């Protein structure tokens, strides 16, 4: 009875998966083998791997995504750790999640105001005697804004992992004579690693194809694969090439999932 009901309830989910996850991915893969003239071809892949522009763009995308993820992690882990120790955890967590309720575009426009030549940051720099600096359209501002936007998505899973941790492990560690550092490094951190991994996935993958920020904050001086995909779909209407880049991104994301997922299984078995 129960299993039957469960099966019925899973129908919308399975349909959803088929229609909006599996079908689009298959379509993208299919499109990527179609040339400008509508025939099946491997040319798109050939062009991609023979072009130093696309390869450099791929390298840039991965590099930026890596830097963003690293910065977000460095900020989020201590934040989640401290958060977990505070009294009104849920309230603080709520405050951290709150910015995600604001539309991404609005946040980007706000940063344009903050970083512009006559914006608040430059007013401050002028006030302390450094003088105005070009902040918008630099690598710094792009990575800063991207990191700001992604931080809640890293804090959440780490916070959950820390919160779910059985406190008796920590007591045991302290009882057995470990100092605070050892307790953290050998007990708490390994146990929170799953949270870190899902956080890395949640941040790295969208960062690979951030394209609106590259224009609004990066002024197109920061170029990622997302820019190229947009151009192929909107301007040149070369959907085949756009899909090829999409496939490369999907493969890159799969690779990240495998790298961050594989160890999780092994660890569980070892445990």
């Amino acid at each position: 009875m129960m299993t039957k009901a469960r099966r019925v309830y899973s129908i919308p989910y399975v349909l959803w998966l088929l229609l909006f996850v599996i079908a689009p991915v298959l379509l993208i893969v299919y499109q990527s083998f179609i040339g400008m003239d509508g025939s099946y071809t491997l040319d798109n892949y050939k062009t991609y791997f023979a072009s130093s522009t696309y390869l450099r763009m791929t390298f840039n995308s991965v590099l930026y995504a890596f830097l963003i993820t690293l910065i977000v992690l460095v900020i989020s882990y201590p934040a989640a750790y401290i958060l977990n120790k505070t009294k009104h955890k849920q309230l603080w967590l709520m405050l951290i999640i709150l910015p995600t309720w604001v539309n991404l575009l609005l946040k980007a426009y706000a940063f344009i105001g903050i970083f512009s030549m006559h914006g608040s940051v430059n007013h401050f720099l002028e006030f302390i005697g450094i003088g105005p600096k070009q902040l918008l359209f630099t690598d710094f501002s792009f990575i800063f804004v991207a990191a700001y936007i992604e931080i809640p998505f890293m804090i959440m899973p780490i916070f959950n992992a820390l919160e779910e941790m059985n406190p008796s492990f920590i007591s045991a560690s302290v009882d057995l004579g470990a100092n605070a550092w050892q307790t953290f490094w050998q007990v708490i951190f390994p146990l929170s690693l799953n949270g870190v991994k899902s956080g890395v996935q949640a941040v790295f993958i969208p960062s690979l194809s951030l394209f609106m920020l590259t224009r609004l904050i990066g002024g197109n001086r920061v170029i990622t694969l997302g820019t190229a995909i947009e151009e192929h779909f909107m301007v040149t209407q070369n959907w085949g090439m756009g899909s090829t880049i999409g496939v490369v991104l999907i493969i890159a994301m799969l690779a990240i999932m495998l790298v961050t997922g594989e160890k999780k299984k092994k660890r569980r078995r070892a445990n």
Partner: protein
Amino acid sequence: MKNLKVLFIGILAIIGVLFVSSRQLEKAQGFSGSNTVTIYNWGDYIDPALLKKFEKETGYKVSYETFDSNEAMFTKIQQGGTGYDITIPSEYMIQKMMKADMLVPLDYGKIKGMQHIDSRFLDLDFDPENKYSIPYFWGTLGIIYNDKFVAKQDMQHWDDLWQKGLANNVMLIDGAREVIGLSLNSLGYSLNSLNNKELTQASKKLDSLPTNVKAIVADEIKMYMINEESAVAVSFSGEAAEMLDGNDHLHYVIPSEGSNLWFDNIVIPKTVRNKEGAYAFINFMLKPENAAQNAEYIGYSTPNKEALDLLPKDISQDKQFYPDDSTISHLEVYKDLGPEYLGIYNDLFLEFKMHRK
């Protein structure tokens, strides 16, 4: 499980209520089939007062939607779905839509007021004899500079963008044809060049521009130039008109060696449902007083010569926006390059964007 059912039914109920009430709302506003004219236009590209006037004069209801690029408009109309009665593409896109058989030939028996249009803007290459399209606005691509940072004599030609003193002070419009085109023009070539040698030369020349380029953006240029974030920008004349309104230090130059002359024309796409309404709108916009009101509001150049007479002298005699014939003779209209060369232009542009500072 019970909660889940309640939630599910609740959501369905809400959707049902919203659907019915939105239908009711549409009816209450008078949107019902044959008396609606669906207009698909660029964002901020008509005086809203004119739409009201049109509704009042003709009794039609206007359903107004906007797009932000020719390509987005093309894709949407090609996929059908919405029955657009009127849209306003640029000239190269009209060519493309003609080839794709997406436009309805105009019935000149139903159009009144063609005699108001300046003959210079009729019967052009992209639409011979104006079989499909009627000029709405025209304009140019040029340089906007701030006289606080750059002297007038130092900013008259495309080559001046490369000058040493402008490091990190030039904003470019985010368009492959515009940026590659200005490089081609500066070398004395056509901006519709299909010659690989010329294109290589143009892209080589662009290699040394990125040190001066602050950003490659679109609509934001307006805001940045008015706030004096940058000394120089390359953009379209209509955008420039708005910037000049916002800051007295800004000026607009059309490089005399050549630049782009563009048109946005009214067409009736094949998705049309209300042909009578579409013609009513065309006739309404052809009336000199309406065209003049629109031109004064938007700031782009009107092709309606009688409307021009109705405009204040400081607009109609402004050489920045109504250049003389000798300048116009150096301007070129974009031609549809075909998919292969459009791809090449875009690859070169992507390569240009990839340059580090």
